[in-house]
């Protein structure tokens, strides 16, 4: 592996899950300022801007003006929750090519304040689209879409509800160590905030069989920013960089006779791990997009942490907890299930992976050296995006 060209040098996660009147753009700008400060940089240093247009359509026209930067590189790739892993991959490539030195990724959302029922539907009619026209009459919710994958995984591989529930148990345990997650759960109206058991998960109501309420991510406000810099810039800043060792991106549209239990993470992961020269068993921290429990289970398999069909036993027994051996620490901030999910969580995967590699996490793995951040965007059962980033401690 060649010496890495780019590193995450600045991070910031908006600390609140209920933002009290701020706009998504205001959240993005505040997070950007804090992340630049974290990197010891300013607005004038930014020469590449990445934006998923979540705070306004066709943001390539507007985001640089709003933030007050003059970029040489503009990238508005928008692939749902995985947009930020795609952005990190593109930023690393632009930096490696010498096209940019300081890349800024931002995210902001007021999904909770707007009472957006992301998982259970009722959205306004979209523009006519071929695929959408074949699905619109049937009332499949976002939760239901992922439930289709879970049901097939159970039927084909014998995965059990108890095994899926373990993922939610682990992320809640991690969230309880994260003061911002605990405060956030209270702020969005969740009562009885405590560690949960498999029985708690399976005793919560079914939203779309076989997925229960506690297997679904929360809906919060929030945002974040990530600053990615060249090795030359990294050498001049005080903090410890998190080097981008490998990147991969892929799309999945499992039509025809495709195996619904295998996601595009197979391809993005192979690419990222191959470029990094790293094997899954070397990974200390697995930040895997936990929109739902099944998302994590399928992606753990597809990234190579377990064989296809063996993700259930792999997730069982608390192996994915930050203080347990035998597997990577999963979503140590509490994840989308129990800490922060304003709709597109991908940027938080990069942020928490970087915290771990700096030794600053609330569920810190001692001496963590290697992390994977895997974003999943779209709808796993019909069409989805997969972005994998391998990060290494500086």
């Amino acid at each position, binding site marked *: 592996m060649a010496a890495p060209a780019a590193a995450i040098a600045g991070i910031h996660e908006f600390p609140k899950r209920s933002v009290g009147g701020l706009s998504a753009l205001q959240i993005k700008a505040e997070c950007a300022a804090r992340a630049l400060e974290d990197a010891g940089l300013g607005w004038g240093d930014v020469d590449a801007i990445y934006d998923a247009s979540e705070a306004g359509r066709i943001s390539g026209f507007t985001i640089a003006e709003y933030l007050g930067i003059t970029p040489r590189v503009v990238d508005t790739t928008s692939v749902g929750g995985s947009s930020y892993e795609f952005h990190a991959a593109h930023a690393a490539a632009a930096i490696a090519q010498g096209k940019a030195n300081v890349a800024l990724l931002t995210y902001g959302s007021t999904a909770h304040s707007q009472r957006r*029922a992301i998982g259970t539907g009722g959205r306004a009619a979209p*523009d006519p689209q*071929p695929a*959408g*026209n*074949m699905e619109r009459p049937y*009332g499949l919710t976002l939760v239901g879409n992922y439930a289709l994958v879970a049901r097939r995984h159970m039927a084909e591989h014998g995965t059990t509800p108890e095994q899926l529930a373990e993922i939610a148990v682990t992320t809640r345990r991690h969230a309880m160590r994260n003061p911002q997650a605990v405060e956030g759960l209270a702020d969005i109206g969740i009562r009885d905030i405590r560690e949960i058991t498999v029985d708690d998960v399976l005793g919560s109501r079914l939203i779309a*069989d076989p997925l229960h309420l506690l297997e679904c991510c929360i809906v919060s406000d929030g945002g974040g920013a990530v600053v990615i810099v060249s090795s030359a810039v990294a050498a001049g800043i005080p903090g410890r960089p998190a080097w981008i060792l490998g990147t991969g991106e892929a799309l999945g549209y499992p039509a025809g*006779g495709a195996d619904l239990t295998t996601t595009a993470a197979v391809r993005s992961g192979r690419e990222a791990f191959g470029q990094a020269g790293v094997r899954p068993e070397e990974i200390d921290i697995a930040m895997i997009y936990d929109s739902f429990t099944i998302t994590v289970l399928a992606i753990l398999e597809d990234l190579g942490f377990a064989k296809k069909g063996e993700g259930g036993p792999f997730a069982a027994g608390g192996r994915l907890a930050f203080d347990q051996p035998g597997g990577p620490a999963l979503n140590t901030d509490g994840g989308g299930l129990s800490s922060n999910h304003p709709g597109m969580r991908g940027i938080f995967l990069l942020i928490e992976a970087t915290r771990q590699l700096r030794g600053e996490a609330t569920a810190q793995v001692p001496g963590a050296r290697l992390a994977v951040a895997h974003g999943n965007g779209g709808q796993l059962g019909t069409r989805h995006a997969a972005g994998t980033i391998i990060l290494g401690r500086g």
Partner: protein
Amino acid sequence: MTERPLPLFPEPDTEPFWAATADHRLTYQVCSHCGQVVFHPRRHCPGCTHGEPEWRDSAGRGTVYTFTVIRQHGQPFFAGRIPYVVGMIDLDEGFRMLAEIDADPDAVHVNQRVAVAWEDHPDLSVPVFRPE
């Protein structure tokens, strides 16, 4: 009583499919050049760059690949129908489609044989599947 959301037109790829449903015909496409089964409907073949997808009639029989029971929905029509079953059906002609499975949720299982049935609307019919 609110109405079931229906496909939105104009949308030229899927309009022929929905027009055929008015005659209770479930249609799919096969490429004239490479023979690939194409679904959802399209003007081009995603399997080769030469062919044109041709319309065929399906017998409307297939197997449940996977399913879910929707128990919460924010849209009034679907909220009034919960719990209901949505699944992916592998049709015998080799295409997979998402559809409602009109059956008791407790009676649906993966690999179950199902056949198409029709819910009639003024200008089209919505295909649903029922256990054989």
